[in-house]
């Protein structure tokens, strides 16, 4: 099939998104300028925890050019609280009422003719606060009482507590030949996309209709929630799709920015733009991720096989609980990793503290679970005196065990972990990675670390509530839709309903449609349609978009091809089963000289209805089909949660080998080599998959070596600028050596697995192991990140001198 090999699945087709982004014609939210548009700015709380005694907005409101000043109380009458997934809900308002619970939390908002004036007015707002006890330590938060309790209706700062066991946990530990115990501290980091959260809303008072442009996603799913909060309905809301300047998960829960723009537009009767500045994004953007303490135990039998894992987890959620326990459900999807471990205990406590609340970030808790498990495996190897690679090989789930049910009930569809490991080892050999430590320059140490992790993909939604005994909103839909229309001239329009987030949705849609219809991609136009298109889209989240989009396109094209065959057969005067479709034409099987092209069929279906049987809907005018793809394999958990069901069954795998160099004088370190082999099932576009992997590794390097949101005891975020936070620059990220293995998924269209998070799901444990290796003579064991120079210095100073 000439066309397929050139432009179909497996080709590095050029990106559709590039031309506009390279020429300054991107369609980012802040690029949109509407007539009479006003601008919002907010007053963020200077205190981490305080009662709002009074707010004086008179001077701000009197400033020339100010169109309105609103407090939380002002807005409470015209909008409801923010959406939350938590049971019971922790109430959060877009603008705080009565109490500020973290630094930067919106206390008042100003709308003005320009953002300059709006910010002038913010500076004129006077707020009297009564400071309350600040809680920043999650272990202290467990015991908080009195005024240190953030949400008094909960009676404490514990917002979730659960303990679950699956498989023979007691037996595994009582009969273990060896038990490894370790504690870990996982740092609070965040996605830090280059584009902050932004929204424009335009309310039409005559029709009562809102138009919203925001760098959010899941417009069709979240939109109805927004409508309810704004006291309206979806017949009065249109959400448009914009280009998004990076999300990495964080913008999946982008709620208060578009909600504020919408409510303010209705209040002042003009379009309103609200764009976070970087400090707002970092303090008030709800853009922080997992902040956890672990106590872990791994049971091992006399044959060095892992038999049980116990995880006791304390997670500092920040001041609210929007994502509920979703990031723990996520970790549970592959808590036992690529290893056969038949018993698991998960003891979880979630607390609220006076920090920004958590949101999803590439990995969504799964990366934390991977880090802990891989660190436990390395600890076990050290204690048992077994080579860490051999210990991994010994415990891998074997190829003939797929599809494999994990102890919690999740399913791993397919894999070949040994082959991935072998491929990574071969690449490391080829690049002489293992020799590098021997050739360290004077004053430098070099260490090599390896990790083998799973890469769960294709999100289903039960992870958000399966740890709740009685969830308020047990959602289980994760649909993706397309509409494919063939024009009268045979060219094709593909409507998709999700934004460009830095992934490549238009390229994917064009490439997969070209593959399926076997036509040149130049014939295909891809359009991103908002909620007016009326179809459901869960969009990019949980490494699902390409796999689910492919399922939707395959579904729509299969329906289309049936009708194309019917039209073609009728035109050729033969029966349906006497023709076949290939390379853009319908051909008579027995006589290939008799054929009719797609453009000719399209014209016939478009304009010549009366040439075809009138009573058969197959021949209705026009070739347009839509399809909504639901999750291919997910199931519900059982009521007692002894089986969590199948919730993340499309499972890739990766082996990373990282090399770091540490300067002994300064204890600063950098990554000098990096090998990564991934199995993401069938690869649609190799260049784009490599891009996702490299980007994920770069963020993993950030988490492991540089990044962390640092709060002082007063709850002040002390590094709330990009200069201080530590996003890696080009100097910190090495060139990477990548390899691939493909074990197709038996459940998805074409066997595609997700790959959007894999780099960051694997990098941190490999880097931690590299630090251990660099200081093998000192018995260093990295149990917390990031390994900044001061963290490494502290760690080393706690070890016995050699």
């Amino acid at each position: 099939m000439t066309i397929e090999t050139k432009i179909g699945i497996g080709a590095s087709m050029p990106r559709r998104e590039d031309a506009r982004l390279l020429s300054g014609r991107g369609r980012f939210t802040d690029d949109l300028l509407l007539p009479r548009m006003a601008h919002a700015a907010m007053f963020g709380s200077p205190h981490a925890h305080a009662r709002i005694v009074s707010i004086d907005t008179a001077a701000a409101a009197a400033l020339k050019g100010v169109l309105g000043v609103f407090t939380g109380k002002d807005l409470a009458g015209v909008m409801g609280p923010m959406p939350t997934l938590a049971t019971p809900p922790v109430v959060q308002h877009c603008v705080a009422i009565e109490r500020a619970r973290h630094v930067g939390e919106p206390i008042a908002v100003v709308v003005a003719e320009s953002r300059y004036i709006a910010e002038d007015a913010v500076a004129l707002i006077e707020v009297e606060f009564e400071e309350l006890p600040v809680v920043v330590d999650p272990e202290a938060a467990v015991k908080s009482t009195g005024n240190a309790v953030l949400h008094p209706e909960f009676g404490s700062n514990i917002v979730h507590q659960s303990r679950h066991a699956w498989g023979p946990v007691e037996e595994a530990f009582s009969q273990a030949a060896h038990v490894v115990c370790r504690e870990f501290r996982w740092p609070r980091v965040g996605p830090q996309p280059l584009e902050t959260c932004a929204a424009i809303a335009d309310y039409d008072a005559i029709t009562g209709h809102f138009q919203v442009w925001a760098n959010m996603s899941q417009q069709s799913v979240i939109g109805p929630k927004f409508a309810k909060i704004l006291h309206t309905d979806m017949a009065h809301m249109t959400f448009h799709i914009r280009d998004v300047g990076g999300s990495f998960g964080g913008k999946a829960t982008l709620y208060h920015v578009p909600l504020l723009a919408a409510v303010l537009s209705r209040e002042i009767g003009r379009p309103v733009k609200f764009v976070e500045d970087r400090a707002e994004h970092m303090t008030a953007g709800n853009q922080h991720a997992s902040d956890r303490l672990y106590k872990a135990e791994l049971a091992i039998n006399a044959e060095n096989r892992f038999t049980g894992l116990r995880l006791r987890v304390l997670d500092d959620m920040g001041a609210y609980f929007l994502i509920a326990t979703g990031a723990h459900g996520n970790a549970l999807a592959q808590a036992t990793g690529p290893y056969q471990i038949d018993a698991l205990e998960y003891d979880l406590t979630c607390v609220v503290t006076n920090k920004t609340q958590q949101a999803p970030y590439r990995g969504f808790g799964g990366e934390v679970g991977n880090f802990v498990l891989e660190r436990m495996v390395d600890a076990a190897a050290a204690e048992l005196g077994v080579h860490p690679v051999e210990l991994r090989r010994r415990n891998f789930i074997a190829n003939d065990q797929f599809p494999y049910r994990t102890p919690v009930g999740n399913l791993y569809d397919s894999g070949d972990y040994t082959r991935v490991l072998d491929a990574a080892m071969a690449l490391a050999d080829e690049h002489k990675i293992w020799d590098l430590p021997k050739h360290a320059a004077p004053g430098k140490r070099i260490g090599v670390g390896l990790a083998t992790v799973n890469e769960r993909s294709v999100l289903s939604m039960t992870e958000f509530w399966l740890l709740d005994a009685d969830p308020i909103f047990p959602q289980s839909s994760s649909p993706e839709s397309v509409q494919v229309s063939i024009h009268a001239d045979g060219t094709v329009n593909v409507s998709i309903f999700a934004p460009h987030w830095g992934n490549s949705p238009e390229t994917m849609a064009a490439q997969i449609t070209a593959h399926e219809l076997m036509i040149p991609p130049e014939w295909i136009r891809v359009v991103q349609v908002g909620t007016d298109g009326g179809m459901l889209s869960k969009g990019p989240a949980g490494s699902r978009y390409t796999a689910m989009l492919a399922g939707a396109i395959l579904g729509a094209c299969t329906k289309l091809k049936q009708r194309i065959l019917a039209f073609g057969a009728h035109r050729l005067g033969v029966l349906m089963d006497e023709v076949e479709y290939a390379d853009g034409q319908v051909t008579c099987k027995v006589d290939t000289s008799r054929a009719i092209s797609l453009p000719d069929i399209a014209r016939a279906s478009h304009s010549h209805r009366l040439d075809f049987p009138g009573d058969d809907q197959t021949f209705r005018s026009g070739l347009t089909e839509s399809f909504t793809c639901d999750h291919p394999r997910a199931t519900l958990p059982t009521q007692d949660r002894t089986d969590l069901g199948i919730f993340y069954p499309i499972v890739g795998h990766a082996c990373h080998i990282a090399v770091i160099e540490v300067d002994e004088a300064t204890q600063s370190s950098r990554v000098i080599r990096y090998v990564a082999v991934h199995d993401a099932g069938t690869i649609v576009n190799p260049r784009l998959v490599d891009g996702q992997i490299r980007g994920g590794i770069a963020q993993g390097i950030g988490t492991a070596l540089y990044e962390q949101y640092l709060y002082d005891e007063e709850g002040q975020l002390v590094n709330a600028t990009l200069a201080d936070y530590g996003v890696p620059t080009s100097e910190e990220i090495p060139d990477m050596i990548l390899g691939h293995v493909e074990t197709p998924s038996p459940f998805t269209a074409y066997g595609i697995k997700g790959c959007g998070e894999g780099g960051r799901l694997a990098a941190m444990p490999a880097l931690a192991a590299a630090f251990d290796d660099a200081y093998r003579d000192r018995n260093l064991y990295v149990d917390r990140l990031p390994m900044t120079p001061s963290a490494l210095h502290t760690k080393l100073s706690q070890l016995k001198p050699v």
Partner: protein
Amino acid sequence: MTNEKQETTAITLTVNGETMSGVVEPRMLLSDFIRQDLQLTGTHVGCEHGVCGACTILIDGVSVRSCLTFAVQAEGCRIETVEGLLERDGKLSPLQQAFSDHHALQCGFCTPGLLMTATELLRTRPGASRDDIRDAISGNLCRCTGYQTIIDAISDMGTRLLAEEKSA
């Protein structure tokens, strides 16, 4: 400006070869002037404190953070933005095409700033080594790509420019 108390100043400058003028408050940032008044929205604003580099433009051929520059400072200056990089026929320039060929962009938000930094580098040092390029772009944050393919694209472009110089 609605706020009458603020004084305003008339400025004239050249943007991508065209003479443009405006009336601005002295405090107006050049990035805002370019994006809002001139409606050239290709120059992006990522941090407004001079760290991310998304707002990088060239002033008289030198790369500058437009978010750390006042519009009035650009009076009489020659400004280049991403919109000026396209070929005369509207096609992507060789540098822009190299970015696409090497998959040097994903979300594309940092890309205009990186293109301007690369433009300056390639004009002054087309023979820059891979390490030189890594150093030159270290003031431009990219959160998507891990930088490798950006360096590939700039390096590829530099090699081609050197070859053209030789053959000329």
